[in-house]
């Protein structure tokens, strides 16, 4: 009873607060000009960061907090150009495949140094990958190395590793090494942009645990200190040779207990960048911040996925799922319930990813109640005429799940309810154990900007991300063929064909693409630019010189 009461109070207070800020907003700061004044190349930026869950080892950062820091301290072989997603060489001079893309030769730019002064060589990469892939080192991202020949020896499905080196990695000389894959992957170079592929210095292997507390990398910033749950400091590395040199003096990553607390500090200029505008301020933040409000799309998609192992969806006619998709009024829901924090999805592949095709799904994602009803009827109707959407209640999914259900119910008369699980762990548990009753909420943020990542890794029969039990031989064959294609262009094209195949099959109903709704303080010079993964490109952020 008490809980319910205080929740009401909070809501009341929030409304008052919103009303007050709406009136008081836009009076100062907002138009003061982000581009006036001068940038200070040594200015320190303060940014919000939650406590990283794992030690700061490159292959151990599964969540965004740890990897946000790691990406400043380590530089990989390649990175992606913001906006286009094109490959950009960082520590690598070249990464070239053989004729069938199964053996890759990496050449390093010579003379790169780690922050402790030791040289970055082929060995730094090979040793790092062998260590990270080894099952006994408990790196949460070790499965990223599974394309490499010999991965099964260091990371068997059961029991102890048979070897501590992958046979597919060969050092040619100090600045050259080769990677032999178990099969052909035409876009393997794109995968190399992920955190796990970072090189590690000699000193790491002597005490990996200590190195996880005080990482030594080869990146644009060197690590200074980690005051747990409070502050992580990184500072510009003067000896950095990469193209993405830091345009500021360093970053103080500050920990906040709540999004509201961080937003308050942003508005009073005690913090220069926040992760996300708190839900309570979404409707007013653009007024509050003016030019300093950030509203940018990134490559992630949210969908609802039928559980194909249930009686309901086992032998479903795809027309029914198409009908359900057309019964969802994405435009209205993203505008009202989600306050414009998402944009309606028109494809399985998120925008900004190579191979994204505008309108790939055509009418299937357009709201059309009459057609929706017709399609469902043609497909033989929804078994039981009732669906539910499973979601986790510890994040704010309920409002949109209710809205989607409402839309489906109104348009087609199919009964729809939210199936709430108390938290993310419980939600995942039900998905893994194939206990989802009808449909579940799915989401996918890009790993690398090629369309295969949004299809093969989600809808392939044996794909790691496939938890719905969807399986289509034709799609699997096409994906395998696409992976073996000679050039990336061919691969991308074949996956675009595969997307049309999925369109007829409907393994999931894409809902919308994610956006960053954030803000920056008046200390920042110019607007903060974002990468495709939804994180700012910190090296490019400039801090205003103090007057």
């Amino acid at each position, binding site marked *: 009873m008490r809980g319910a009461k205080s929740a009401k109070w909070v809501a009341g207070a929030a409304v008052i607060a919103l009303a007050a800020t709406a009136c008081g907003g836009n009076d100062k700061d907002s138009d003061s000009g982000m581009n006036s004044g001068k940038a200070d190349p040594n200015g320190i930026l303060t940014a919000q960061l939650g*406590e990283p*869950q794992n030690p700061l080892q490159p292959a151990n950062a*599964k969540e965004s907090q740890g990897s946000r820091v790691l990406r400043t301290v380590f530089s990989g072989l390649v990175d992606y150009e913001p906006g286009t997603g094109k490959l950009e060489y960082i520590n690598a001079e070249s990464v070239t495949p053989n004729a069938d893309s199964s053996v890759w030769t990496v050449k390093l730019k010579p003379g790169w140094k780690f922050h402790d002064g030791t040289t970055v060589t082929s060995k730094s990469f090979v040793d790092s990958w062998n260590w990270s892939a080894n099952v006994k080192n408990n790196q949460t991202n070790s499965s990223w190395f599974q394309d490499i020949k010999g991965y099964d020896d260091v990371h068997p499905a059961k029991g102890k590793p048979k070897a501590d080196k992958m046979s597919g990695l060969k050092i040619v000389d100090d600045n050259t090494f080769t990677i032999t894959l178990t099969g052909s992957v035409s876009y393997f170079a794109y995968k190399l942009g992920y955190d796990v592929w970072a090189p590690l210095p000699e000193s790491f292997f002597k005490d990996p645990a200590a190195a996880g507390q005080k990482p030594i990398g080869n990146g644009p910033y060197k690590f200074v200190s980690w005051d747990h749950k409070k502050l992580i400091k990184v500072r510009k590395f003067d000896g950095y040779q990469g193209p993405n040199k830091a345009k500021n003096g360093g970053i103080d990553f500050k920990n906040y207990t709540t999004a509201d607390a961080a937003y*308050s500090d942003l508005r*009073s200029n005690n913090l220069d960048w926040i992760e996300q505008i708190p839900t309570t301020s979404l409707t007013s933040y653009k007024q509050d911040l003016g030019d300093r409000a950030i509203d940018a799309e990134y490559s992630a998609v949210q969908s609802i996925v039928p559980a194909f192992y249930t009686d309901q969806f086992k032998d479903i006619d795809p027309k029914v799922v198409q009908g359900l998709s057309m019964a969802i009024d994405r435009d209205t829901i993203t505008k009202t319930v989600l306050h414009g924090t998402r944009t309606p999805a028109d494809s399985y592949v998120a925008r900004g990813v190579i191979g994204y095709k505008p309108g790939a799904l055509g009418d299937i994602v357009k709201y059309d109640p009459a057609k929706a009803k017709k399609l469902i009827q043609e497909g033989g109707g929804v078994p039981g005429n009732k669906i539910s959407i499973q979601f986790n209640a510890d994040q704010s999914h309920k409002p949109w799940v209710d809205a989607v259900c409402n839309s489906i119910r109104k348009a087609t008369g199919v009964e729809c309810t939210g199936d709430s699980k108390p938290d993310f762990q419980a939600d*995942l548990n039900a998905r893994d154990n194939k206990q989802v009753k009808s449909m579940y909420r799915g989401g996918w943020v890009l790993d690398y900007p090629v369309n295969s990542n949004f299809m093969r890794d989600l809808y392939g029969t044996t794909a790691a*991300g496939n938890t719905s039990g969807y399986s289509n031989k034709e799609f699997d064959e096409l994906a395998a063929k696409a992976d073996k294609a000679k050039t990336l262009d061919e691969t991308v094209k074949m996956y675009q064909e595969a997307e049309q195949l999925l369109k007829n099959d409907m393994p999931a109903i894409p809902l919308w693409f994610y956006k960053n709704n954030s803000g920056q303080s008046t200390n920042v010079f110019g607007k903060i630019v974002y990468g495709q993964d939804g994180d700012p490109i910190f090296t490019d952020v400039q801090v205003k010189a103090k007057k």
Partner: protein
Amino acid sequence: MGRYVARRLLQMIPVFIGTTLIIFLMVHILPGDPIRAMWGDKAADPAQVASLRHEFGLDQPLWKQYVDYMANLFQGDFGKTFGGREVIDEMSESFPVTLRLTAVAMIIEIIVGIGLGAWAGLRAGKAADTGVLIFTLIVISIPVFVLGFLARFVLADQLGWVAPNVQDSTDYAQLFLPGFVLAMLSMAYVARLTRTTFAENLRADYMRTAMAKGLPRRRIVGVHLLRNSLIPVVTFLGTDIGGFIGGAVVTEGIFNVQGVGNLLFKALQQREGSTIVGVVTVFVLVILVINLLVDLLYAVLDPRIRYA
């Protein structure tokens, strides 16, 4: 006295084992696998999940996990977080922060609460008394959450008098606002309690005697009345320390204090058993010890109370 203390200390052992067992069971009964959850929406790597579960002993039967946990605990080892840090390190960083916050709240509560109560109690039935009554009623009826939110909104966001968040948890000046918010509710209770006992004791025999003896008023009120009236107040203050540490979860969240409330909240979200059990274990110990101290304080305040 010594025997009483010894008996009380011995009683703590079953209470301690019982509470830790209950918390331990509650954490493990929750659905979902925290190790699996590290992978989020993406599929987990079964070999790595098995390896991690083994490392944290989660593949053992529950009773064995508890026995191992307790055995380690008696050696001062609270276990490790999933991130590989010692739980004891996490606690030794956050407990001092919360203790500081609690101390600030306690001082505010004692000074303002008892002061206000005494002031009203000595003027029972007059306008001042009614004023305090209304004020405390208002405070009691507003949840801490709302109070904190409003205080931050008005004082920091609108007026700009203070920074909205605590930037440095070791700075007592910055802890004043969250401490005040945390103290508010209990302060009202202390004021009401003090006011009632004051008003009651004013009519007590010993007061009349003291007055008849011609003692100065300051001594009557300051020593005789205050000391006797403080007994129920001290009990309340004692139990309140435990409440403060618990209530800090909300206040710490609002004002960004990186204390134990925050630690517990995050640990619950990540289903980090060793941290949850560890923090609660310390809570239990603190509350047990404080209760003992409160009981012993009675004897100091009222010499008639003697423990065998």
